[in-house]
C-alpha cells in the first residue's frame, strides 16, 4: 500500500510538471535564503571564535576582573604549570591575545597576535602548511591561512606591530578572532609587542592572557573549572613566583568550560540569538508556504481524493501520496537551495563571511523537512479524514 501511495504521489508530480516546478522554484529560493542566513551566522560565529576553537582545550582560566574577555585578561604565565598538578587537569598552557597590525610590503592588515605555549593545549591544532613556532624561537610566526589572500606565503618576512620583523613558517586554519586573522608567535614576542604598545606597563615576560586546560579523560570540564576556581580563590603573586608582575597580587580567577568561554567572546551570543530567530523565521516561512501549497492542492483534488477513497484507497495510501510530494519538493528545494548558496558563497566579496559546511546543510535540511511536514500536516489531516461519501456530491471533473 505504501508503494501504491508513493507511485500515486510521483505520478502526480510527473504529470503536473508546471505546478511542481513552480512550487519547487519557490521552495528553492526559500531554502537558499534560509541556508544563506544560517551560513552567514555560522561564518560570523566561527570567525569570532576560531582562536579558541582551534585549541585542544576544554577549560579556559581568566583573570576574574577581565569578565571572561580574552583581550583584557592577565594571568601569571607560570599558572599553566601550577594547574597541571590539579585533579582532572591533563595539561595546561597559556595564551595571550593582542590586536595589532601586520605589514606586507606597503599593505597594512589588522590582525590579532597570539602568544602561546608550544606543545600545550594553547597550541593551535589545525596546521595546514609549514610548522608552528616553538617557545623561545626568535622572530618566527605562523599565520592564519586567510592571510594568503593578502599575498602572504611561507618564508615571507612581515612586520608586526610596526617594527618587528618576523618570518612566516606555517599556516593555521580557522583561527580568526573577532573576524580578524591571527598570527601565532612565541610568548616572549607577544609580551614584547604588548609592552611596546603599553610602555607604561613595562615588559612583563611572566605575564599571559589566559590559561587553557585540557581535562583528563573522563573528567567533566565544568567540575574541573570549579575545582580550579576553588584552588585559586586567593592566589598571591608569590605563589606562582611572579617577581616582575606586581599588579597581580591577590587576584582571583574565572575558570569556565570552553563553550562558555566561546559565548563570552564579544558579540557571539547576540549574533547567534539574532540569527537563530531570523533562521527560525525563514524555516517557519517554508513551513507556511508548504502548508498553503498542499492545502490548496488538497482542496483542488478533494473530489479525486474522495473518488479514490470510495474505490477503496485506505487513507494511508493518500497520505503517503501527499507526503511523497512533500518530500520530493523538499529534496529538490534542499539540493537546489544548497547549489545556489554554494555559488553565492563563491561570488560574494571576501568581507562578507558566508560558509556552507556539510553539517550546516544537514541541519538546515532536517529543519526544512520538519517544517515542510509540519506545514503540510493540516492538508495531510484533511486527506486522512476525507469522507468518501463526498464523491456522490461533487463532480471530479
Amino acid at each position, binding site marked *: *500500500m505504501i*508503494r*501504491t501511495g508513493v507511485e*500515486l504521489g510521483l*505520478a*502526480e508530480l*510527473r*504529470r*503536473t510538471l508546471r505546478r511542481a516546478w513552480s512550487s519547487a522554484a519557490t521552495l528553492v529560493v526559500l531554502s537558499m535564503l534560509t541556508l544563506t542566513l544560517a551560513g552567514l551566522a555560522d561564518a560570523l560565529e566561527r570567525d569570532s571564535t576560531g582562536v579558541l576553537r582551534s585549541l585542544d582545550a576544554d577549560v579556559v582560566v581568566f583573570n576574574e576582573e577581565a569578565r571572561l574577555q580574552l583581550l583584557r585578561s592577565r594571568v601569571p604565565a607560570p599558572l599553566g604549570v601550577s594547574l597541571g598538578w590539579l585533579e582532572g587537569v591533563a595539561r595546561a598552557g597559556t595564551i595571550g591575545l593582542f590586536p595589532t597590525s601586520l605589514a606586507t610590503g606597503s599593505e597594512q592588515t589588522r590582525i590579532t597576535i597570539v602568544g602561546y605555549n608550544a606543545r600545550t593545549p594553547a597550541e593551535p591544532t589545525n596546521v595546514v602548511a609549514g610548522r608552528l613556532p616553538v617557545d623561545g624561537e626568535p622572530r618566527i610566526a605562523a599565520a592564519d591561512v586567510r592571510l594568503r589572500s593578502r599575498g602572504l606565503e611561507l618564508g615571507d618576512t612581515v612586520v608586526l606591530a610596526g617594527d618587528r620583523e618576523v618570518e612566516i613558517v606555517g599556516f593555521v586554519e580557522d583561527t580568526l578572532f573577532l573576524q580578524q586573522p591571527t598570527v601565532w608567535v612565541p610568548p616572549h614576542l607577544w609580551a614584547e609587542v604588548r609592552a611596546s604598545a603599553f610602555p607604561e606597563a613595562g615588559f612583563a615576560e611572566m605575564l599571559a592572557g589566559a590559561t587553557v586546560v585540557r581535562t583528563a579523560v573522563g573528567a567533566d570540564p565544568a567540575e574541573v573549572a570549579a575545582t580550579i576556581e576553588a584552588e585559586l580563590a586567593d592566589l598571591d603573586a608569590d605563589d606562582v613566583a611572579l617577581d616582575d608582575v606586581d599588579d597581580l597580587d591577590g587576584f582571583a580567577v574565572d575558570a569556565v568550560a570552553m563553550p562558555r568561554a566561546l559565548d563570552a567572546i564579544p558579540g557571539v551570543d547576540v549574533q547567534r540569538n539574532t540569527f537563530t530567530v531570523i533562521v527560525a523565521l525563514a524555516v517557519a516561512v517554508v513551513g507556511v508556504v508548504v502548508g498553503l501549497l498542499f492545502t490548496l492542492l488538497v482542496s483542488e483534488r478533494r*473530489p*479525486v481524493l474522495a*473518488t*479514490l*477513497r*470510495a*474505490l*477503496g*484507497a*485506505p*487513507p494511508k*495510501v493518500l497520505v503517503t501520496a501527499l507526503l511523497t510530494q512533500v518530500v520530493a519538493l523538499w529534496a529538490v528545494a534542499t539540493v537546489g537551495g544548497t547549489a545556489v548558496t554554494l555559488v553565492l558563497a563563491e561570488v560574494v566579496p571576501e568581507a562578507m563571511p558566508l560558509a556552507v559546511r556539510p553539517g550546516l546543510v544537514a541541519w538546515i535540511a532536517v529543519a526544512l523537512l520538519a517544517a515542510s511536514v509540519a506545514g503540510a500536516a493540516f492538508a495531510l489531516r484533511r486527506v486522512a479524514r476525507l469522507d*468518501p*461519501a463526498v*464523491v*456522490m*456530491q461533487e*463532480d*471530479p*471533473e
Partner: protein
Amino acid sequence: MSAHVPDESGAVVRAQGCTKIYGDGHAEVTAVSEVDLSIGRGELVALVGPSGSGKSTLLSMLGALLTPTTGRVFVEAVDVGVLNERERTALRARRIGFVFQASGLVPFLTAQENVAAVGSFAGMPRGDIDRRTRQLLGQLGLAERTDHLPEALSGGERQRVSIARALLADPPVLLADEPTAHLDHERGEQVIRLLADAVHDGTRAGLVVTHDPAVAAHADRVVHITDGRLDPTG
C-alpha cells in the same frame, strides 16, 4: 456482533429497513426512509426517481460509503453497519465496483494506471493487476488508449475506463450512479450495454441510478423512489 449473517434470500446486496437522516433538530432531513431492497446475482436493478428523491443516498449506503441511521445493509451476507472504517474501505475495494456520473478518473493517471490503482487497493498481486487491466481495457475497446491521460479520452472512453476500473477486482456488486448523464445517446447506449453485460454474465449484482428511461430499459427490474421511499407499485 459478527459481520457475517447467513442470507437465505440469495441476495448479493440487501438493504433492510434502511433510513438515513441528515442533521438534527429543526435541520433534520430524512433522505431515505424504511427502504428494503435486495438484488441477486445476475440481476440489474434500475433505481429511478426525481432529483432529491434519495437515489444517491441509497446507492451510497449500499456501497458502504454511508452508514444508515437505522436499518442494515448486507453485502454478500456481511453486515456493513458493524464494520469499522478500515473494514468498510477494504470491503469497497474488494467487493464493490463503482461507476460514477462523471467517470471519476484520476486526471494525472493514464487509463491503465487508473484501472490498476483499484487492484492495488484490493490487494491483488501486481502480475494479476497488469494482466487483468490489459484484458479488460482490450475487451472494452481501449487497447490503443491505455497510455492516455483522461483529458485525452472522449467522454465515452472515460466511462469505459471507469467500467474497467469497477470490474478489475471482480466484485460481486456493481453500483453505477447516472453513468450516462454526460454522454450522448449512442455512447450512453454503449456504456449501459457494457454494464448490463457485466451483470448478466451471472457473476454479480448491479444497481444503476438513472432518470433515463433508455437506461432503465436494460434493467431486469426498475425500482422507483420518491421522497426517500420506494414506490411499492414500482
